């Protein structure tokens, strides 16, 4: 599995996966593990920076999908696969279960139908509970609830570690990662395709379109026009860890035809999440929060869990779901053009990712791509950033072996110098402070950098990467040409050349 080495012209890859979100990295991982030479391309400076990083961080059972749909099938499969993979890869998961709460008589009347739908989706342990048991389970729930469905399998997961684990494993298996490279066109050919990117051309035999919010554009590059992505923005509010005792399960609303509605959920980092809103926006990069959105969430939060109102907000953010006019995933493989489209994954990509990757691998094999058929190896063990397990600062043996694991830098999230050092020196180092946040939780806490941002910036700068998060010079500029192979694509975002060595053989 030797691809790009140094600055030489890479051999054509078997597959170019466009889009390094949770779906793209899962597909690249699946293919690389089967000895398929693979290039993973993304416009951003890291994996998992689009829909994958800003969602509700729930590992869905798929109980409320459309029975018989591809989404239902792949979500169910992905749920099982990811649950198992997360345990082995050190991805934080908590099996909290969910309560789907009815607040009106109409909603209560819908619960049996939802329960029936869950069974038809293969989620057979869903069951109703009465109002007494509901308040027994969730004493802080706001007044007026009439009953609930228990969905024991719904869980919370770390959305950041998941694509990082996939990408780390894919890289180790020989995949190449080409970041800061926006695909601008595809020259489809008989022998090979040429993906034109902002950092040069990528030759490949197959193209896999996992471009999420931009998948309609990539599909058009392959001559398709079957769907249009309608970005649907969801704003979310993260509450202080001191709010965490207010609930024990995920609290779901009764969904409407349009959206799953506003939920309240614990996070694996020990916070409480409130959201999302659902708003169609024209711009696939518009992840701004809005006054109206945040206000509507605070209103909903006060009703669902009144205790939230007394707690501080730690963070607010927004993400975009890659919705289409269709109700189901848009996944197909066109063997004659050596093209796979994996689009319209909306809000279930994290949970379904391994199911989607398995399904797409199968379709590609059926269409003639050779897979080695070897069993999956053990996944890499990722740095553990959850709240439920033991973190380095709590681990006497680890601190004894390496005192930097006892040196807390970020006090809110209790992130140590050792963990930051490891992330910066890891196989997939962060390109900016946001990347470091997703790998370590640093800067994510209640003080938002009051205490540690200066130190963290210094550590980041000391690593040879840019810590100057403010200078105009750090404005992201993607080189127009790739003159010396992928290694020349460094400078974007003021980033160091070492980041681009991730494109490796």
């Amino acid at each position: 599995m030797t691809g790009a080495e140094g600055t030489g012209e890479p051999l054509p890859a078997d597959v170019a996966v466009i889009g390094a979100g949770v779906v793209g990295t899962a597909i690249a991982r699946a293919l690389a593990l089967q000895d398929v030479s693979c290039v993973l391309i993304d416009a951003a400076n890291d994996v998992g920076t689009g829909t994958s990083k800003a969602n509700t961080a729930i590992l869905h059972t798929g109980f409320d999908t459309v029975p018989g749909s591809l989404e239902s099938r792949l979500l169910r499969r992905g749920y099982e696969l990811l649950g198992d993979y997360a345990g082995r890869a050190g991805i934080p998961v908590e099996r909290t279960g969910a309560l789907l709460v009815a607040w009106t008589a109409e909603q209560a009347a819908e619960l049996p139908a939802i329960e029936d739908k869950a069974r038809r989706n293969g989620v057979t342990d869903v069951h109703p509970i009465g109002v007494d048991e509901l308040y027994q389970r969730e004493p802080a729930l706001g007044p007026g609830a009439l009953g609930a469905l228990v969905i024991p399998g719904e869980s919370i997961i770390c959305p950041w570690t998941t694509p990082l684990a996939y990408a780390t494993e894919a890289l180790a298996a020989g995949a190449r990662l080409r970041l800061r490279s926006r695909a601008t066109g595809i020259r489809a050919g008989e022998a090979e395709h040429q993906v034109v990117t902002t950092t040069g051309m990528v030759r490949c035999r197959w193209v896999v379109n996992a471009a999420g919010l931009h998948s309609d554009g990539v599909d058009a590059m392959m001559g398709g026009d079957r769907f249009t992505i309608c970005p649907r923005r969801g704003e979310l509010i993260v509450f202080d860890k001191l709010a965490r005792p207010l609930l024990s399960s995920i609290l779901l609303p009764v969904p409407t035809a349009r959206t799953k509605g506003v939920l309240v959920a614990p996070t694996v980092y020990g916070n409480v999440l409130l959201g999302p809103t659902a708003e169609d926006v024209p711009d696939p990069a518009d992840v701004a929060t809005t006054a109206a959105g945040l206000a509507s969430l605070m209103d909903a939060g006060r009703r669902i869990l009144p205790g939230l109102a007394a707690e501080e907000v730690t963070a607010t953010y927004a993400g975009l779901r890659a919705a289409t006019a269709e109700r189901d995933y848009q996944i197909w493989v066109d063997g004659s053009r050596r093209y796979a489209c994996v689009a319209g994954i909306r809000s279930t990509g994290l949970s379904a990712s391994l199911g989607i990757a398995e399904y797409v691998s199968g379709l590609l094999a059926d269409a003639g791509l050779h897979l080695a058929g070897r069993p999956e190896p053990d996944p890499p063990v990722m740095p553990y950033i959850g709240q439920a397990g033991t973190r380095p600062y709590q681990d006497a043996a680890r601190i004894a072996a390496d005192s930097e694991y006892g040196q807390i830098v970020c006090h809110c999230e209790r992130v140590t110098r050792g963990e930051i050092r490891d992330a910066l020196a890891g196989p997939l180092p962060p390109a900016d402070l946001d990347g470091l946040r997703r790998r370590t939780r640093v800067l994510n806490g209640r003080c938002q950098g009051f205490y540690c941002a200066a130190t963290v910036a210094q550590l980041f700068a000391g690593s040879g990467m840019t810590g100057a998060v403010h200078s105009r010079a750090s404005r992201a500029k993607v080189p127009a040409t790739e003159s010396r192979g992928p290694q020349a694509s460094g400078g974007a975002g003021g980033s160091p050349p070492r980041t681009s060595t991730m494109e490796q053989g």
Partner: protein
Amino acid sequence: MNADVLIVGAGPAGLAAAVELRRLGVDRVLVLDRDEAAGGIPRHSEHTGFGARDLRRVLTGPAYARRYADAAASAGADIRVGTTVARWEGPDGSPGGGLSQGGGPHRVMLASSAGIETVAARTVLLATGCRERPRTARLVPGDRPPGVMTTGELQRRVYLTGQRLPGPALVVGAEHVSFSAMVTLAHAGARVLALVTDRPRHTSYAGFGLAASWRWHVPVWPSTAVRRVAGRGRLEGAELADLRTGESRFVACDLVVFTGDWIPDHELARAGGLAMDPGTRGPAVDTALGTSVPGVFAAGNLVHAAETADIAALGGRHAARGIVAFLRGGGGDGPAPGPVRLPVTVEPPLLWIAPNVLRAGGPAPPRGRFVLRSDVFARLARLEVWQDGRRLATGFSYGMQPDRPVRLGASWASRADPGGGPVTVRLA
């Protein structure tokens, strides 16, 4: 490891308490700080004005911090920096349990580069200070580019890690710390566009406002709210709304510093199950600065966010005397305060009062007075203290301003009925 007093937080309050405890003959005083050096917030407040009331001299923040750290060390306190309280343990060793309820010693688990160890402490003083509300907690919407920070982050970047910063910068807030942020920005080479406040005028010293205008040429934009932060990947500016006219405008800038709007760092107090005061949002404290758990005290800006450093230090010194009385079983100055904790509350537009609990026979509060906050300006305000329909006292406040201390004498405290209803302070 054992300690007579475990002090959490080596800022002005914690260090001043340590000095006083040693002076009063307490043997084992252990002071912890999670930061890498002792001194607290003044460490990175590189302007003068520190120490007037507690040290009777005026120092810069870093000099003031060094002076207290040196004084505590030479007084014989054991100061450990880079050390975090990882857990409180109940006397039965219950994991994640609350504080010991007056029985055995408080078992506190510490994490540091030396490993994990447990301290058994007869008493605990929480002096964990306060922080500024960041942009997120203020629910300011918009994009999320870098370049948006608090004064704390700004000063650490500039004074502790020597960063230069680009301008122009916008300072959100116009209280004492906002002017401090302005000076820090100037020091770091950033031009400051303005201090914006949603209040009708700034709430710092008149002289600061004049100095900002004359020396630094930085205006205060009053009655102005930040509606949105804009910039993808890089900060472009902020949308400001004039609260009088409703008009909004976009101001381009490279930095936005959110200042003030203090909140106590009360995580440990709440983890320990201390009763909290709804006004200050710190632990409820009596006039000896004792909390709801016997043997646990709290001082400094954890109980009044935020007063100046000298007031925090004097509070620490005051708490030390309460701790000594506790350790000696109420001996010393007089009888132990009674067990009943009578809450003292405020009515809007007053925001909080500290201390906020009375106990029969308790000492006078720090400096012999209560400190309050108001949400309104008033040239002359009359404060009234009421209990069960009975007026206990009347006081006057001249030049009342938001973000600034309002002081109330304490002579009425002995007139409150310990068995009566809550005491309320309100504006007449």
